[in-house]
């Protein structure tokens, strides 16, 4: 988290009301713009932003200062939007599933889980995902530091949007073999680092593109 945000949080925790005003002033615009992408009714948009701020206040005692504030606020905001759509019947109800604790097992057919995926406890799975997150953070930071913008755009489109290689090549003015090579090199690097940390890469099918259907 940026130093300025850390100070702001400390001031809010110590009881400075003007710090809360600065916080609201700083984040309300982006939150409102975020909700407006999903909901048109302006009164509902304001309600959701307000609920997001209240949600933040409620989680303040446990707020992890290593995490960026806006990312945390957008996560709260998304949950408020999910709640709103659930109440209005506009989205499938996933709440009963997302609140599942680590001990509860839901049987998944083999085809769903993939041949190499074995059931793990929630805790272990989280540890493995955290390890992958750290590796990804390092790699993305390195690409940004090296100003490798086209490579970063390419990898993001491959892994986050699953955009086909041909389309990526056209968008970024690369050849298809270049796109494939960026992907191959990145996957190899991630797998090597996971191996070094003793993390099971089998849990992430994207790291085994040749085996995916």
């Amino acid at each position, binding site marked *: 988290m940026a130093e300025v945000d850390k100070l702001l949080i400390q001031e*809010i925790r110590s*009881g400075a*009301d003007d710090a*809360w005003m600065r916080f*609201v*002033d700083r984040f*309300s*615009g*982006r939150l*409102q*713009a*975020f909700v*407006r*992408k999903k909901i048109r009714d302006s009164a509902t948009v*304001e309600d959701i*932003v*307000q609920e997001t701020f*209240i949600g933040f*206040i*409620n989680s303040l005692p446990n707020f992890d200062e290593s995490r960026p504030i*806006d*990312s945390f606020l*957008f996560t709260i905001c998304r949950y408020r939007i999910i709640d709103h759509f659930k109440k209005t019947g506009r989205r*499938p109800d*996933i709440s009963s*599933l997302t609140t*599942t604790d*680590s001990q509860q*097992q*839901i049987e*998944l057919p083999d085809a*769903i889980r993939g041949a190499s*995926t074995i*059931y793990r406890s*929630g805790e272990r*799975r989280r540890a493995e*995902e955290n390890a*992958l997150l750290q590796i*990804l*953070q390092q790699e*993305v930071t390195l690409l940004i530091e090296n*100003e490798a*913008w*086209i490579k*970063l*755009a390419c990898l993001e*489109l491959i892994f*986050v*949007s*699953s*955009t*086909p290689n041909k389309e990526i090549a056209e*968008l*970024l003015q690369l050849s298809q073999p270049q796109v494939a090579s960026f992907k191959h090199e990145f996957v190899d690097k*991630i797998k090597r680092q996971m191996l070094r940390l003793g993390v099971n890469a089998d*849990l*992430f*099918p*994207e*790291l085994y593109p040749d085996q995916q259907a």
Partner: protein
Amino acid sequence: MFDEFSDTDLAAYLEEDLDANKASKLEATLINDKHLQDRLHTIRLQIAVGEHSLGSIWRQNNLGCPSRKTLGGYLLGILPNDQKLFIQSHIEIRGCLTCQANLADLEEQQTQNQEELTARATRYYKSSIGHLSQRRQDES
């Protein structure tokens, strides 16, 4: 057969993190597409047991998202071409909702009346400060 919507798209949809245009398209397709309905159900179950794909981990943690300062530079058109292309791809193709919101907010700050923006922030402040005071009292 190539699936128009990836598993990462479906997870983003369930987590309200999918670009609005793509979400509308997905909802329209879902009505008659049994295969897509089944895939969405599968992703719901995977989220339920705490499984996230590499793509979801990347998306949920906003990896690569440009800072507000950089987005400001993008708006002003002062970034190098490759960086500009990355941000364009990040916002328009990958459809990052967080950056779309930050960009819209920055544009609004340039065009909207400052008094209206302050009035809006004051409304949020007034409707939430009571909760903050209450929380402080509960803790002390």
